[in-house]
């Protein structure tokens, strides 16, 4: 783009090199990096014909924090706090993926009670993640009140999680061989209060938002992803389950004690934004089921192994991969160690990155308002995508 007045080429690399479609008389619009509905600093260059999108190109890198590089200059224990900050929505999944990979590498046994505590806190964290998404998504669609109701419930959960993890947002409470703290009576009391309470809230969510005709017209039959598309882009989590692929890491590659509980993997066949929406709301319900069963059958024992690795601990030479089901999909961590103080390389597999890549294809030919609805239905957490 050329500014005639200043005789300068304006715009950055991406604007200058954006490949327009075949159509003429189109408008190039920069959505983001500071746009209310991109949830952070995602930037999308759109080519618009009126309000219809001809071509969309997401651009990443505005929140790149070198998490993978940081791993190479820290010991494994020292890297744990980073895992709470990759994804602020569901940090415990990242905690777990990293701890699991290191435990697999070092052959560390996790006590049974610790596994239960991990399941409980991780599932509660999944509910907070979905509630955050739910509120923000409805906010994208223009209703301001549901996010406050969601945050009311989320605050209760954060209070609960604060007891066991000590913090409210960027948890780094898992340790190699257990978790950092055991639960207390207050935690049990609050969780047992919360589960029936949340079950009474879900019908309210349905009445206020899910059944609302304006919302249904906004999200039904837009942003269709076919199962083939999901496989091509490697999308996971609620996005895949909304398209009829019953892939849940907790079921597909069972880890920890998930097999002991009775729960279902919610799957919807339609593949539109509404299907993904319903999957997430159903997952809240299933997470409540898991937490309820885990609380009831919580075994006695230690919350961490006796000889938990100290910060000077050196992992044996080799590599290990561990994947868990996060709020957005498959969270995987690959740890490569050469036997030294610091890991040789850590690779983080962020589900949001794969999910975002669906956007460019799905948004073609939709309205600008639909693009916002599709983007929201992917449940993107930008720091996780950029890492």
């Amino acid at each position: 783009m050329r500014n005639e007045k200043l005789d300068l080429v304006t715009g950055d690399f991406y604007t200058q090199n954006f490949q327009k479609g075949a159509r003429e008389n189109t408008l190039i619009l920069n959505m983001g990096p500071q746009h209310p509905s991109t949830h952070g600093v995602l930037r999308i260059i759109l080519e618009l014909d009126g309000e219809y999108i001809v071509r969309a190109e997401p651009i990443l890198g505005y929140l790149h924090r070198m998490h993978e590089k940081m791993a190479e200059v820290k010991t494994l224990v020292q890297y744990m706090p980073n895992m709470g900050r990759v994804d602020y929505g569901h940090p415990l999944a990242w905690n777990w993926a990293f701890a699991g990979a290191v435990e697999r590498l070092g052959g560390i046994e996790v006590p049974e009670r610790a596994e239960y505590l991990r399941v409980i806190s991780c599932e509660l964290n999944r509910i907070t993640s979905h509630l955050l998404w739910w509120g923000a998504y409805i906010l994208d669609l223009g209703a301001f009140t549901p996010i406050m109701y969601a945050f009311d419930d989320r605050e209760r959960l954060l209070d609960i999680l604060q007891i066991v993890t000590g913090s409210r947002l960027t948890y780094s409470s898992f340790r190699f061989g257990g978790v950092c703290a055991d639960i207390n009576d207050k935690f049990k009391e609050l969780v047992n209060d919360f589960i029936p309470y949340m079950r009474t809230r879900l019908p309210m969510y349905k009445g206020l938002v899910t059944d609302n005709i304006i919302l249904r017209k906004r999200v039904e039959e837009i942003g269709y992803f076919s199962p083939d598309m999901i496989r091509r882009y490697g999308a996971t989590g609620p996005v895949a389950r909304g398209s009829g692929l019953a892939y849940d890491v907790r079921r597909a590659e069972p880890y920890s004690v998930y097999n002991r509980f009775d729960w279902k993997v919610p799957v919807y066949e339609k593949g539109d934004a509404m299907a993904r929406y319903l999957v997430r709301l159903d997952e809240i319900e299933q997470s409540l089921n898991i937490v309820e069963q885990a609380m009831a059958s919580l075994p006695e024992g230690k919350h961490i192994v006796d000889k938990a690795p100290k910060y000077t601990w050196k992992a044996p030479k080799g590599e290990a991969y561990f994947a868990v089901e996060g709020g957005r999909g498959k969270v995987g961590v690959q740890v490569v160690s050469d036997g030294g103080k610091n890991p040789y390389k850590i690779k983080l597999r962020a589900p949001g990155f794969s999910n975002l890549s669906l956007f460019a294809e799905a948004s073609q030919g939709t309205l600008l308002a639909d693009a916002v609805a599709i983007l929201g239905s992917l449940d993107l957490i930008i720091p996780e995508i950029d890492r």
Partner: protein
Amino acid sequence: MNPIKKFFQTIADLWSLIVGLQITGKYFCQRQVTVHYPRKEIDPEINKTYRGHIELVASPKDPTKPKCISCLMCVSACPSGCITVVKSKPPKLSPEEEQAIKDAEARGEKVKKPSAPKEPAQWKYDFSLCSLCGTCIEACAVDSIQFSNELYVVGTSRNDFKYDLLARLKSQAEKRGPVAESKPEAETKEA
């Protein structure tokens, strides 16, 4: 879909708008859930395990002194480098004492030089860098560090978050008074 069914579907769809109004209207009349912070505070029971900034644990003998033995484990364990511990120097000897030691050494006796006290001279902590991970607490050899439950921390500049934890320990001990139990409740869970 036949037209009659479609008509009833439309009515049902429009009814959903009324349901939405009913829900927000109901909450309009109900009590608010906000905790008005300066006037009210949340249940302190929840904050018992809150991990605020770190603080030193007083030694059982002297509440103004920390348990710390200046081993610097926490300094090297901290992933963010927010802890600075300065070891105490050996006490300065008067010229007569030095002379005495020299004389003794000259006589071939083994003299025990006065060693530096174990307690740290300075214990500085930069909260603005800290990620509250607890690695220092787990690394500490004598359980001298714990998380405080300080939830309400505000400041107007970066310097407000550079704490001198030795001074903090002293002021805490003074606040508690001499009569109170000298050993503060250590967070056993974290240790």
